């Protein structure tokens, strides 16, 4: 039960309370640049969620078995190659390069998949699909997973990593879809000339972020509610 609650807390935390876009400011570029039409924004959100889940799975595996301090696979290899057994093996200095490689290849994979099975969607995305590589949200998820694999009170399993990444992806989708809806309405408004475009979008995003601050504390309340429910 505790595992389910902790997974749920990670998920809600990434999706709503500490929303990737509105709290951690990752994935701002597509948030400001792409979000002009709701259907496009939704497609973009789904693609990011998909890529983020793949990248998180791969980078969790890499970090857990190879990159973290005293990772089993690299420690075994070090001993098999005759290294000093008293020295602990730590490859975490390579993690940034490894993650960016993983992300670039998962984006390439998703692009090939979408091109083959959803050619219409692929045409409407155009340049934005390869640009997911430079979407900070994905690297951010990988870094959070790394942070929770290097010690701390709990070493994350793959299920925690997936909860964080899917939650983050869904949070990104929620934020970008709301923003696209707001901007569709904004087109009809009389905005001061200097604020047209990104200026007013940022101000609206600020108000949206304030609204999302209202979710603070929801996680504890929900966790308590689940606990009382299961105890009765």
């Amino acid at each position, binding site marked *: 039960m505790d595992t389910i609650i902790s997974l749920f807390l990670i998920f809600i935390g990434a999706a709503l309370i500490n929303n990737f876009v*509105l*709290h*951690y*400011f*990752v*994935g*701002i*570029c597509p948030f*400001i*640049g792409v979000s002009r039409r709701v259907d496009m924004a939704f497609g973009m959100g789904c693609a990011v969620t998909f890529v983020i889940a793949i990248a998180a799975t791969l980078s969790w595996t890499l970090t857990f078995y190879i990159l973290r301090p005293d990772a089993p696979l690299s420690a075994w290899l070090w001993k098999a190659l005759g290294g000093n057994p008293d020295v602990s093996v730590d490859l975490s*200095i*390579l993690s*940034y*390069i490894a993650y*960016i*490689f993983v992300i*670039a290849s998962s984006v390439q994979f998703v692009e090939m998949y979408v091109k083959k099975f959803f050619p219409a969607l692929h045409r409407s995305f155009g340049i934005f699909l*390869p640009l997911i*590589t*430079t*979407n*900070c949200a994905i*690297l*951010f998820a990988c*870094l*959070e997973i790394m*942070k929770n694999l290097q010690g701390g009170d709990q070493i994350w399993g793959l299920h925690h990593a997936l909860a964080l990444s899917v939650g983050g992806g869904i949070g990104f989708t929620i934020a970008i879809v709301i923003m696209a809806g707001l901007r569709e309405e904004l087109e009809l408004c009389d905005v*001061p*000339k*200097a*604020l047209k475009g*990104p*200026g*007013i*979008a*940022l*101000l609206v*995003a*600020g*108000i949206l*972020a*304030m609204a999302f*601050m209202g979710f603070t504390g929801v996680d504890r309340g929900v966790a308590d509610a689940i606990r009382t429910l299961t105890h009765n």
Partner: protein
Amino acid sequence: MASSSPSPAERFIAGILPENPIYRQLLGMCPTLAVTNSLKPALTMAIATTFVLLCANISISLIRPLLKPHLRILVFTLTIAAFVTIADRLLAAYLYEMSKQLGPYVPLIIVNCIIISRCEACASKQPLPHAIADAIGMGIGFTLALASLGFVRELLGMGSLFGHQVLPSSWPNWGILVLPPGAFLTLGALLGAVNAWTARRKAKQLSN
């Protein structure tokens, strides 16, 4: 020749205001919004980014003849990732508290669009002096943008600058500016102010 490819000096000036990465091109928004709740982290971040931008521009410009078109983005990102690792380790060694405060935003320099766009638009096509001037100009432009945001947010949000109280204690701190929504609001307002200022200057030049 001079009109088709700007000289190093022109590239340097361009980065500071006419093509300012934040206010004009709206690139690299993630660190801009995330670390500017006070001046100190904002400046550290700006310097780290400038360092990575300069190193990446120099290396890309040097290996320019070897670049293959279909692999260039991968080469850019891996080069940047290597330099970001160096910057991250340096920060952790000499400014440990600051590196902890900046947290994941130092490694996130890897996906900062400014650096990739400068590698693509300038360093992969121009010789070394141009690339260096471009990197320093863009770096200063980025630093100015981050410093202006950090200045406004720290001054109005906490009444202090670099951690020293400057406004009288009767100042009601605008707490929202230090919180995440304040980042969006301040940048939106500053962006509007810069746009209005440029428009007025252009109008004046036309009327003269």
